[in-house]
Each structure stands twice: as C-alpha cells, then as structure tokens.
C-alpha cells in the first residue's frame, strides 16, 4: 500500500510542487494521475521512489516510512518499484540490451537469468530487433519503450510510470497500455501520470486529477476530464 499523508513539496527555489496531498493507493490498483502541465504529477511520482523528499507530511510505501529512511534502505525501497521516468534516463554509451540488463545487474541477478529475461522483455515492448542499438540510434518512442522494459524487467510490485506513452503514436501507445494492463492483471500496482485522454477515458480506471499541486478529483472509474 502507498499512502501520502498531507504531503507538501516545496522546492529550494520556493515553488510548490504539491500542496497538502493525501492519497491512498492499494495493492493491485491501476491509477492514472492526470492534470495540466505543471500540476505536480511528476512531483508526486518523484516522492514515491524518493528522488525527492517531502517537505511536509509523510509518504509510506509498504513498510517504508520515507521521511526516516536510512541510506541503505533507499535501495531496498527502489527495488520494489519499477520506474519509467518522464525523461527516460537511458545510458547513452550502452546498448538497448545493456540498458535493460543493467537494472538486473544492479539487484544482483545471475548472468543466466539476465540472458533469459532481457530478450523476453525487449520482445514484450516490441524492441526484439533493436537489442544492439544505442539510444541515439532509436526514435523517441523506441527510447521510451527501452525505459519501460527496464522498469518491468525485475517484475516490480509497483510500476510507476511518468508519461510512458508521451512520444508514442496512438497505435503503439495502445500496445504499451495493453502491456501495463497485463502486468496489472498479474498483480502489479500501476501508477501512471499521463496526458493520454483517449486511453484514460477508454480504460475506466481510477483517476486522480491534480491541479496546482492539489488533488481536485479522485474517481474510481474516472475520465480524463480536460480538453487535450
């Protein structure tokens, strides 16, 4: 379970990313974070994997209480999560395969498991034939899918995706969304910040809308609700 309790995030320059946000996400949920650009979706997401710390309030992820997390435990928290970053964060000097394998090496997986698992995941996101390409040899959408593969490769309990379909054409976006649905069906909790109106409307899942750092709407079977 993920729980935000009256969380505010104030950045060093004085800007507020989140204001007094309370939110509970249960295991197995599929939840969309929507809202205009600059609303605070990424701010919320970054708190979950502890790239940023809350300025006020408390964030809980399962047994982890994030404000008092010791350094060594941050790694353990992050291993529960598969994160697709809004800015993708691929390593430019590594191939597609290495970029994904890397996430498994980090958690100490065996070479055999890596050899077995990485091609599977790359196939899953439709990059089976780009294994040896470097990120700069890929399109924006393909890079995004490498990021998704990396987030999924360790079978995380929570998948946190910040606009994972931002650069994808509707067709591919749809394929990727099906992938997330499948992962969710197998038990993973999916938290996705997105501007993909059609998909949100069509999926009929929980929608949390954020505006100017505040939660303004939280619906179990919600719609996107903005003109995109």
């Amino acid at each position, binding site marked *: 379970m993920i729980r935000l309790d009256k969380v505010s995030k104030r950045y060093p320059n004085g800007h507020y990313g989140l204001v007094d946000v309370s939110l509970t996400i249960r295991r197995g949920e599929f939840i969309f974070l929507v809202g205009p650009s600059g609303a605070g979706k990424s701010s919320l997401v970054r708190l979950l994997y502890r790239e940023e710390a809350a300025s006020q309030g408390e964030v809980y992820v399962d047994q982890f209480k994030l404000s008092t997390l010791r350094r*060594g435990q941050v*790694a353990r928290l*992050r291993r529960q999560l598969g994160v697709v970053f809004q800015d993708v964060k691929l*390593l430019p000097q590594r191939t597609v395969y290495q970029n994904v394998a890397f*996430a498994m090496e*980090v958690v100490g997986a065996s070479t055999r498991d890596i050899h077995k698992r990485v091609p599977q995941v790359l196939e899953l996101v439709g990059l089976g034939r780009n294994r040896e390409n470097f990120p700069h040899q890929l399109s924006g959408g393909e890079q995004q899918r490498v990021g998704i593969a990396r987030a999924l490769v360790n079978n995380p309990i929570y998948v946190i995706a910040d606009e994972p379909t931002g650069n994808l054409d509707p067709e591919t976006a749809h394929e990727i969304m099906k992938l997330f649905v499948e992962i969710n069906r197998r038990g993973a909790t999916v938290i996705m910040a997105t501007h993909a109106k059609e998909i949100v409307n069509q999926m009929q899942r929980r929608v949390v809308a954020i505006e100017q750092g505040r939660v303004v709407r939280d619906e179990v079977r919600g719609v996107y609700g903005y003109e995109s």
Partner: protein
Amino acid sequence: MNLNGIGYIVRETLRNLARNSWMSLASVSTVAISMFVLSFFLVLTTNLNHVTTVLQSQVEMKVFVNPKVGRLKEISLLNKARHWPNVRHIDFFTKQQAANSLKREFPNQRDLVALISKSNPLFDGYDVFTYRPQAIPRLATRFEKDPIVHAVVYEGQVVTRLAKLSKVLRWVGWVVEGLLGLATLFIIVNTIRLAVFARRREVQVMKLVGATDWFIRWPFVLEGVILGLLGAVVADLVVDAGYRWLTGVAAIALPFWPLASLASVMTQVLLFTLIGGVFVGILASLVALRRFLRV
C-alpha cells in the same frame, strides 16, 4: 557479494579503464611520479640509516685499566661487562698489544717506537662496542666505578650528535613522506572525481533503479586500486633500475662509501609504494564518490 557481483565489478572496472584510457594513463603517470619522489626519499633515508649504522658500529670506547692490576681481575671485569646492557662486543688488549698496534700505525715515528719499546708506558684495557651510541656515556660511568679502571675515553660529542642527527632526519622523513602522501592522494582524488563526473548520469540512474552505494563504489574502488598499483609498479621499476645504476657507478667512483644494498632499498620502496598505492587508490575513490552518491 556473490560471483555475479564480482564478475560485474571486474567487467565494469575494465570497461571504465578502457573507456577513459587517456585519463587512466594520465593518473598512472601522476601516481608514478609522486611514488617516484616518495621512493627517492626512501632511498635517501635508507642510505642515511645505513651510514649511521655503519658509523655507529665503528664507534667505540676505550677503557684503560690501572697498572699492576692482575690479569685475573682484568678477565673477571671483562666477563662481567659482557653481560651489561647495550654492550655488543668487548675486546681485551694488553699493553703489549696496544704498543704493537701503535707501532703498526705509526712506523715512521722513530722516537715513539723507541719509547714504547724501552719501557712500555701504555695500559692494558678494553675496546667496547655498543648497540646504541646513546648508551656510551652511561656505560662509561659504569666502567669508571670499577676500582681497577684507570680511565675511560670515548668520542662523546660525535656520538651524541650523530644520534641527534639521525633522529631529526627520521622526523623530517615522516613529515616529507606525509606531505607527499597527501599530494598523491589529492591528485588521485581529482582524477577519479573526473572519471566519476564523466559518469555521474550513470551513477544517478544506477541509484534510481535500486543499486546500493557499495555496488556503485566497488568498480571505482577497484579502479583506484589499479591506478595506484600501476603507478607504484612503474615507479618501482624506475627506482630499481636507477639504484642498480647508482650502485654500479658508486662502486667505481666512491669505493669506500657505504651504500645500502639494492635488496634493502627495494624492500623499503616496494613496501611503501605498493601499500601506499593501494591505500591511496581506495581512499581517493571513496572521497571522490562521496558527493555523487547522494541521489
């Protein structure tokens, strides 16, 4: 850390060294240069110590026995004094032997030879060798207390000055070596920091996907150790060759100058540079990484 982990670390390290091969070369050279300076100093101190020991072993004290004391008493003091602390070695000489050695030393001094041949005015006595020159004054008093002793003669000031000098040199040595160590550390810290800086994105992403600090550190630490060791080995090779050459030249030019042996010099140099290289490499990589691990 399991086997996969070790494989990962080694692969990462080699990849990093190869990727930054110019940088690696540069840091190995800097390490080698500072290790060479360190070695130079080590060679110097080893040799100074060597000269000091050689000189100390030549330092002696002469104890003269009253005339008309029986041989038995002389021998009994000899046997007693052998067990006194700091006594390395004692030679007993009779006044006849003293006269002979004088004659040998100054064969052209006719008057002298005639004088000591007629009625020998010299004394029986002992040549006393000590372990430490500082011990000589105390031993001298101890001999003087014995009723059969007539006089004790030693080069008091030379001995104590030598001891003082070697003490000062040792201190200067530690200070200079400490400063050099710091300079070396500083250089490696900066080289590794540049290497980490070039890969800060990678470090950041690693942390974000759940890498522990040590998982990230190991390759850099190993890299630091390899850089330190390679630099040390280069310096060691140069010093070895250089010292061989020096001993060869000195054997001809200064045959009486007591140079420390190659083996004794190289054990010092190897010990300090290799341990120093590893130590500095580890420390430098840890210091260099600190800032970048805060993600």
